[in-house]
């Protein structure tokens, strides 16, 4: 299993945000979010470009062999066709390669691993290229500082095969659409095609919420995680017949540092086992977990033989967890 990430070159730092929102300082933004800078795309740069760049780097020095391409994104190039087909052609993958997009956010990487693992186990595929990428920055209203401080753009590529050595198991997945409107871009799809048909509002903190832009109810999402994540972790461990002590590393979706630290303490996870990787990239939605894994591999924190508990949770609501034996 090989994992490669790609961040756009353009950086939005806390100093710039503090200049735009004078009631905040760069340090206050860091204290509240754990984020110093996030990479954001420039005009014309799409999620598929980020996924393409990650995949290109992944294929350096290895054959372009994949018979299944899964692309997790909520910011596709077009309404149709599926962006995965565009990427199959652009990456020079054979036309025998199956390709499909799936629309998930914070839980997307775990769902992608689950799909890839199932395809490999069933024999339906031999080598699965799992791509994740999103450009939430293009969905955020310039005057919605609460989300602009959190999200960054990124793409990742993961190549999975039966021979890769890594083992994935004990998947637990779940959904609760009652929380759909807590993290949403309401207009632009078939339900509300025209953003102007819905009102733009401003909340008590001055954040502007336009129907064609990303809306996030941060406290409600946090409240959801307080209930969902401990249960998810418990269920994954039960399925794997492991205790938390037997897990070497825990990688959660990197939502924001405040949320992660609270969940870490609540679950009794030792800081040395808990991966925090968002200071220089922010919350990159479905790319946070593979970016954190890539960093753990390159820094030597993730070593062969280790058992890693992965958990993603958020927009949907949707959640998923599993064990990765590296």
């Amino acid at each position: 299993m090989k994992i490669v990430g790609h961040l756009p070159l353009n950086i939005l730092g806390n100093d710039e945000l503090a200049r735009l929102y004078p009631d905040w300082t760069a340090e206050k933004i860091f204290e509240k979010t754990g984020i110093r800078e996030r990479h954001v795309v420039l005009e014309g740069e799409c999620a598929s470009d980020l996924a393409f760049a990650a995949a290109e780097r992944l294929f350096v020095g290895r054959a372009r062999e994949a018979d299944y391409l899964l692309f997790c994104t909520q910011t596709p190039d077009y309404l149709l066709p599926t962006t995965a087909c565009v990427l199959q052609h652009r990456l020079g993958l054979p036309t025998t390669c199956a390709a499909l997009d799936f629309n998930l956010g914070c839980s997307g990487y775990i769902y992608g691993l689950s799909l890839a693992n199932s395809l490999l186990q069933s024999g339906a595929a031999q080598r699965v290229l799992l791509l994740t990428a999103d450009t939430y920055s293009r969905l955020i209203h310039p005057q919605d500082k609460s989300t602009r401080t959190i999200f960054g753009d990124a793409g990742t590529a993961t190549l999975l095969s039966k021979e890769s050595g890594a083992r994935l198991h004990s998947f637990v997945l779940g959904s609760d659409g009652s929380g759909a409107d807590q993290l949403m871009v309401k207009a632009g799809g078939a339900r509300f095609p025209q953003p102007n048909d819905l009102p733009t509002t401003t909340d008590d903190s001055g954040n502007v919420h336009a129907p064609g832009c990303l809306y996030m109810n941060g406290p409600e999402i946090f409240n959801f995680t307080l209930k969902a994540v401990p249960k998810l972790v418990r269920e994954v461990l039960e399925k794997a017949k492991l205790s938390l002590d037997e897990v070497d590393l825990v990688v959660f979706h990197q939502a924001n540092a405040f949320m992660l630290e609270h969940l870490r303490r609540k679950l009794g996870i030792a800081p040395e086992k808990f991966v925090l990787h968002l200071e220089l990239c922010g919350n990159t939605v479905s790319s946070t977990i593979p970016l954190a894994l890539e960093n753990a591999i390159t820094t030597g924190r993730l070593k062969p033989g280790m058992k890693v508990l992965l958990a993603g949770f958020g927009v949907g609501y949707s959640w998923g967890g599993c064990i990765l034996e590296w």
Partner: protein
Amino acid sequence: MTKTKFIEKLGAELGIPPATLLEEAPLNTFKAWDSMGHMAVLAMIDAELGCEVPPGALQKCKTVGDLVTLVGSKLES
């Protein structure tokens, strides 16, 4: 936890002297009562009282007293 202690904790989370946190005080007059303030209070309720807050309930609270009522069953009389 007593009501007094809860209000002390609330003040600590929002950076407000507890003496000014009167039960009738409107929460939207506190600068710290923003989305991060909401999250800090949810985290405090979770850590200190271990009680679940129903979806949407926190944002319906308009005063300090509403927050006390929200967690009332977990407070010592």
